[in-house]
């Protein structure tokens, strides 16, 4: 069942396609995880409802498509501010009260939020699978025998752009510096006069805007249904942990690694085992390098 051992042109073609698959899949994972690592990194809160915001983004793309025949790429422009506001609202209603509470409280708050969102979607829109079919869905770019799905390429490019933009934001703007300071030492930041509440609000809103946008971009590739978040949420945690909390470039690399493990695992051992591989990788990283493959040792206990 394994491909022949010789490395002829056919084998190279397969390898090239696998690499492309990894990069494109990694791009999608990065897009989804960037928001999570920001929230996790700066607020030190595990957002178990992350997948549900992704799902809401997918539904936004669907309804915009069905009601207004709006192409998802246009919807993105609406999604960013819309989900930013959603993030502000959710923060004010739910998250603010538990920021200073214990981990258990935070965990179960977001778990509860996840349940609520999933079922609101189920009650409002039923469990039927929906599809977004813009004209460019089946467009593929070809280079030799290797194919690139256009929608995935766009999603990956946007993921990279978004990540770089956020990195730049964090590094060079005042707001970004303030956020990083709060992440490093919440108490010191407060003593320095930083309004940590505003910082967290901004962080959460940006994170939700990122994942909501990801949902819009990803919607044409998969079906839209209330538990769609489950497809991605667990692996985005793996990505975030691999890359190191709050490290967005790390998240991108982590995405590539997870995608690579999935693609290689599927190809060599069969699709049945791919999740086991990255879960085991996850547990190993948690045990041996919890700061992530690229993070500083010991960083995981800071503020946690």
């Amino acid at each position, binding site marked *: 069942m394994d491909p022949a051992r010789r490395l002829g042109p056919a084998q190279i073609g397969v390898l090239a396609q696998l690499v492309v698959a990894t990069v494109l899949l990694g791009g999608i994972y990065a897009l989804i995880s960037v928001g999570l690592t920001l929230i996790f990194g700066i607020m030190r809160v595990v957002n178990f409802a992350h997948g549900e915001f992704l799902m809401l983004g997918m539904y936004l793309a669907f309804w915009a498509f069905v009601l207004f025949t709006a192409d998802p790429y246009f919807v993105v422009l609406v999604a960013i501010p819309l989900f930013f506001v959603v993030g502000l609202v959710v923060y004010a209603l739910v998250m603010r009260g*538990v920021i200073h509470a214990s981990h258990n409280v935070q965990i179960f708050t977001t778990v509860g939020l996840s*349940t609520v969102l999933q*079922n609101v979607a189920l009650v409002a829109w039923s469990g039927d699978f929906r599809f977004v079919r813009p004209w460019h869905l089946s467009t593929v770019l070809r280079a030799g025998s290797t194919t690139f799905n256009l929608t995935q390429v766009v999603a990956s490019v946007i993921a990279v752009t978004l990540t770089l933009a956020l990195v730049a934001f964090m590094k060079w703007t005042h707001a970004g510096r303030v956020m990083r300071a709060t992440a490093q030492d919440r108490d010191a930041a407060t003593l320095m006069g930083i309004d940590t509440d505003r910082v967290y609000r901004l962080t959460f809103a940006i994170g939700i805007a990122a994942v909501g946008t990801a949902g819009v971009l990803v919607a044409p590739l998969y079906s839209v249904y209330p538990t769609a978040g489950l497809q991605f949420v667990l692996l985005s945690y793996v990505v975030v942990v691999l890359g190191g909390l709050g490290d967005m470039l790390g998240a991108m690399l982590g995405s590539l690694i997870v995608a690579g493990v999935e693609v290689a695992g599927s190809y060599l051992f069969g699709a049945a085992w791919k*999740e086991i591989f990255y879960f085991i990788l*996850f547990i190993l990283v948690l045990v041996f390098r919890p700061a992530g493959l690229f993070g500083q040792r010991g960083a995981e*206990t800071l503020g946690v």
Partner: protein
Amino acid sequence: MGALLRNRRGAVIFFGLAALTPVVVRDAYFLDSLVLILLWGALSAAWNVAGGYAGQVSIGHASFFGIGAYSAALMVTRFGRGPWLGLLIGVVISIGAGFIIGFLSNRLKGPYFALSTIAFSQVLLIGVSRWRGFTAGGEGIPVPFRPGFATLGLGHVGWVYMALSVALVCYAVEVYLERSRVGYQLAGVREDEDAAEALGIPTRKLKVGAVALSAALTSVCGSLWAQYVGFVDPTYVFSVDLSVRFALNAIIGGMGTALGPFLGSVLITSLETYLRATFAGVKAGFTGIYLIIYGTALILVVRFVPDGLAGIATRIRMRRAHA
């Protein structure tokens, strides 16, 4: 004995009512609901041993539940032996798994630990789903009902007392943890691990022990559940939803208390069965509402009523005492 009963008034009322119910009520559905309340309560109490008393909040306890359920089911269907043997084997395996999770708890804190427990339960889920040759894979295992105690083929009344026994055992373990030296040490670990360590308390061993004990109790409940419901399906018994549910009851009822998990179970299980029964016929979509209610309840309780129902009861009692 008198003092014990007086101090544990709530427990006496709860378990006493549970024990008396089958004498008074013959309605099978009511008894079935009671069995579920007791069983979910026991599961939450088992979770509480690790989560509430040792402070190791896991969202992966379904791992142990599934191990127990599969052990019992496989022992009956594959090896032709009784479920009790399966229960014992499940306990042994779960203790092993508990050691692994306990080891993880020594390396990881808070949300990291929770995430690792989720990963563990998912690895088990996938592994069991694929291992068709042994576990019948995704198709699950139907567990036959054969009347008799050895085969756990009990009638409704029998199941009430069976569930009650397990619930009492879990409750007793919790009480032991509240009143014994080991329990005080565990509380120290929970509140401030570094300080406890400084005092010479063997924090690592205690944590691992607590998790293993919690695992064993959860496994027992899982084995019983398999015989009660009669079908073991990997995507259900290892699911994250189930793990959350164990924690949910304990949190709503009061995480650090012995009776809390049972109070939580009474409220949640009753709410669930009631809403499901009432809304099933109405427009199909509305049945999702009780899950929305859960989620909202979880968010609200965890923030505003962190002591849970038991905490409320205590506060009322204290207020009355001071009035």
